[in-house]
């Protein structure tokens, strides 16, 4: 659960009089309009029903006639209401510092206020203080001033957990802290390094800020506009055995590419739900891909050095710096940078994903930030859950089960998107294809159709979707047959940046590679029938 402060620092504008709580743009989920009241200047009042309070608290307060935070304030601290006439920032002398390690012990100042509240509510002093503090917590988490210390004491949006006397430092890490600053499209575009390079004509200068992870198949990369984009949630869907895991493994290995070679120099985090990465076969595959990648970088480095020497350029030292082969790039280090979480059921998967921010923070602190998060696969455990048969009637009672699954998926998708932008990594999720019976208008018997699993709502939450399939063709007996046998098509069906299209690639023992050009030519001659 994230604390998103959905509005800026509350304005202490002396022009705001006659504040009608209905018109406050900042109040969260306002369900019923509160009665219009003339509130003192320099204060906000939120209807209590729109705060996330415990039902017992809410009923107790409502029953005693309090319907908004302004009511509480004016009942506890009527001095503030009158003091605000001079345009003073209220709260003088009521500085209630929660971090003092106090609760009741330190609030002799506030006792009066709580006593009045207790009298109005008809409950004990402790209970009243409890209610007030609860309201404070909720208000603070939305960046609003507290009822017990209004205005000026605590305007900055903070997560609620930092308020408690004994702060559990680990808790605060999981709440992603941010404030939204509005920006124009021009400023955002100006700050993107790639565009900056393009604008200044400096395309070849790729220093640290590559925004894509390449896949070693040029057709896929150009389909996606450079590769798998950082800060985005991409989905890969396809039939089993078509190469989804292979593509993800290639991406993890490629995320380690040095910046000089078009890479992002980052680690990878893998949520392995199906076991393909943790078994002996997965380890072998990663190893051979890592070796192939390191070899590729080595040969290209050597070739660059040779070219530089041959061209007899003056500043050969400058060339050497760019083509220097990084010594830290070994297959072992590549494999060490791939962190695999093997999750065996839905609970582990959910908990591990929600617990990732802490892990990612640690990686950043150690200087090896993660640049790609792979979830292989998103669908496996959810299909276990959603295909649960209800023991009740046959009549589609699965509905209530799938509603909560959909809700969870939407929340998780939102969380993943947040992770992607917060930690600047590419999130790649694998999905399955499932059969759905399409009702045909003409006949009753529905056609079977293969559609991506996980539902519509998930499909909206992802940024881009790639569908992978075997290349439809007949077995050729010519010499190019060995490579055609492993050709795949990769279709971009959903993307905000690029038009839809199809790319061809092959899977070799080195990993994902492009299709050799002679094979492409012969294929073009035969005009294969693609969907």
């Amino acid at each position, binding site marked *: 659960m994230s604390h998103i402060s959905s509005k800026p620092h509350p304005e202490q504008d002396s022009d705001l009089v006659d504040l009608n709580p209905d018109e406050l743009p900042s109040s969260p989920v306002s369900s019923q309009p509160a009665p219009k009241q003339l509130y003192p200047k320099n204060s906000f009042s939120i209807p209590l029903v729109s705060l996330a309070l*415990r039902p017992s608290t809410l009923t107790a307060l409502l029953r005693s006639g309090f319907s908004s935070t302004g009511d509480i304030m004016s009942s506890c601290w009527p001095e503030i209401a009158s003091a605000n006439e001079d345009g003073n920032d209220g709260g003088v002398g009521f500085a209630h510092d929660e971090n003092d390690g106090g609760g009741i012990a330190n609030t002799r100042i506030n006792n009066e206020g709580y006593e009045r509240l207790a009298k109005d509510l008809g409950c004990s002093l402790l209970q009243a203080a409890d209610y007030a503090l609860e309201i404070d917590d909720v208000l603070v988490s939305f960046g609003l001033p507290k009822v017990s210390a209004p205005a000026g004491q605590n305007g900055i949006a903070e997560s609620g957990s930092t308020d408690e006397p004994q702060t559990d430092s680990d808790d605060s890490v999981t709440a992603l802290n941010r404030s939204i600053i509005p920006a124009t499209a021009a400023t955002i575009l100006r700050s993107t390094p790639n565009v900056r390079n393009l604008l200044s004509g400096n395309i070849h200068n790729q220093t640290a800020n590559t925004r894509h992870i390449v896949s070693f198949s040029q057709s896929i990369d150009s389909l996606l506009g450079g590769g798998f984009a950082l800060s985005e949630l991409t989905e890969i869907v396809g039939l089993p055995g078509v190469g989804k895991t292979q593509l993800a493994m290639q991406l993890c290995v490629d995320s380690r590419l040095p910046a000089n070679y078009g890479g992002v120099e980052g680690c990878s985090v893998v949520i392995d739900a199906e076991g393909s990465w943790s078994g002996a076969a997965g380890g*072998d595959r990663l190893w051979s891909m890592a070796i192939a990648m390191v070899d590729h970088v080595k040969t290209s480095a050597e070739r660059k050095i040779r070219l530089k020497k041959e061209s007899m350029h003056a500043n050969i030292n400058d060339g050497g710096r760019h083509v220097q082969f990084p010594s830290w790039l070994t297959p072992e280090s590549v494999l*060490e940078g791939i962190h695999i979480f093997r999750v065996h059921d839905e609970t582990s998967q959910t*908990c591990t994903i929600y617990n990732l921010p802490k892990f990612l923070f640690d990686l950043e602190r150690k200087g090896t930030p993660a640049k790609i998060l792979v979830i292989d696969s998103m669908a496996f455990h959810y299909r276990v859950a959603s295909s649960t048969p*209800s023991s009740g009637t046959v009549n589609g009672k699965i509905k209530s089960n799938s509603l*909560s699954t959909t809700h969870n998926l939407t929340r998780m998708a939102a969380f993943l998107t947040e992770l992607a932008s917060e930690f600047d990594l590419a999130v790649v999720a694998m999905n399955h294809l499932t059969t759905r019976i399409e009702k045909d208008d003409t006949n009753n018997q529905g056609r079977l159709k293969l559609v991506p699993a996980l539902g519509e709502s998930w499909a909206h939450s992802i940024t881009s979707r790639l569908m992978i399939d075997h290349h*439809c063709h007949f077995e050729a007996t010519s010499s190019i047959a060995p490579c055609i046998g492993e050709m795949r098509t990769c279709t971009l069906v959903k993307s905000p940046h690029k038009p839809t299209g199809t790319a061809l690639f092959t*899977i070799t023992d080195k990993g994902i590679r492009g299709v050799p050009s002679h094979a492409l030519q012969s294929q073009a001659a035969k005009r294969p029938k693609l969907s």
Partner: protein
Amino acid sequence: MVTNDGSNDRLISNLPLRVFVKLISGPRSIVNPIDAASLREKILSKLAGAHADFLGPSRSSVSTIRDVLRIPPPSLLRILDPCLTHAECERLISRIHRECAVKPHSALELVRRTRAAFGGDDRRTPDADAISSPPGGGVAGKIPTGLPTLDSCLRGGIPVGSIVELVGRAGAGKTHMAQQLAVSAAMAGGGAIYVDAEKKMSLHRLREIALERSTMTSLDTTNREEDRLRHSDDFAQRLLENVTIHSLLTSRELLDALDKLEGEIMLRNSEAREQVGMNNVSSRRLPVRLIVVDSIAAPLRRDFEIGSSPHAAARRAFAIFQIAKILKRLAHDHQLAVVVVNQVGSGGHNYRENVGYLRNRTLDINDGEFTASLGTAWQYCATTRIILEHKDDPHILQGERDGGSIRVAILTKSLVSKRTKIPFELTRQGLREVSPA
């Protein structure tokens, strides 16, 4: 008929106390110290009595962690009223997340762990022994199949840690291959568990394969006939002592048997460890290295009639996922190979037409005339797939050699290899590769 979803899940009552410690802040905790244990009791009882209508009509209380995580936050606040405030609810949820999250391992660690579990040298690079393995086996993490080309494609043999599917028509040789794998596992120093759902397991045949294959390998070490016979007899004895057989018929029995497997595996592994510790001579008890399920299709097809009701397919898919989940976890936790035998159904042409052009080449048997049974759901569960078929090509000389005809093993789905066809025949020694004529 099949177990419900909640039985394998973690109960909230098993959450440790530290999740509840210092959960509450404010005056309530200072003056009236609420200790973690009583808070936990309160929360548990509130959850147990919760009317959770979003869990489905068959569930009436929230008792597992998965259910708690499915509750939307405002509902959780309402259910736990007045134990926790909103902020405290969030803190509880994030602590549950932290508690149930798994620990990561780097890929390098996993590779080394597989090799260490097989007693290999974990400092050697994995590709040093990736090429063809000797018939006795010995590549860390792999169980050789006995067909050299197949083994070299698979980098040594059937990998541990994932599910391998053997699929083919009746009489193609699936059970034979499964039995041969059990023998190979024993030669590599591991025991096997055979879950026999078709009553096709033949102990006689198993022993025969064991005798033949161990005679083959001991030809290198000794020339004396009696020594060889004694050695192979000894080996066959050891093999049979280390293979357990579970016979069953229904899918319910299958799930029950799989649930109990973990206990058996741990018991056998610990016995093997003790014996190795006591004397360094070859021990009689071997750790479990292989599970064979022969077959998964028989009980499921028996119990779930597809087409009888609209939800039969969903129920079968659910059962498949349950089985796959258990098998994968066993494979990963105990570093063993899991081989599952599947049958075929003749829905080839209809299947293709209905789904349009989206054909799955990894499933085509006899060029698409047949397709593996159990539908789309099962396809995602197997990491490696080997199709066994008869080779009907009239150009190949179909001689009756040792009572078998030429067949083909096609490796169609694998992380480490592309699609490969390996012709073989069935002999007394088991499966033997033939070179294409």
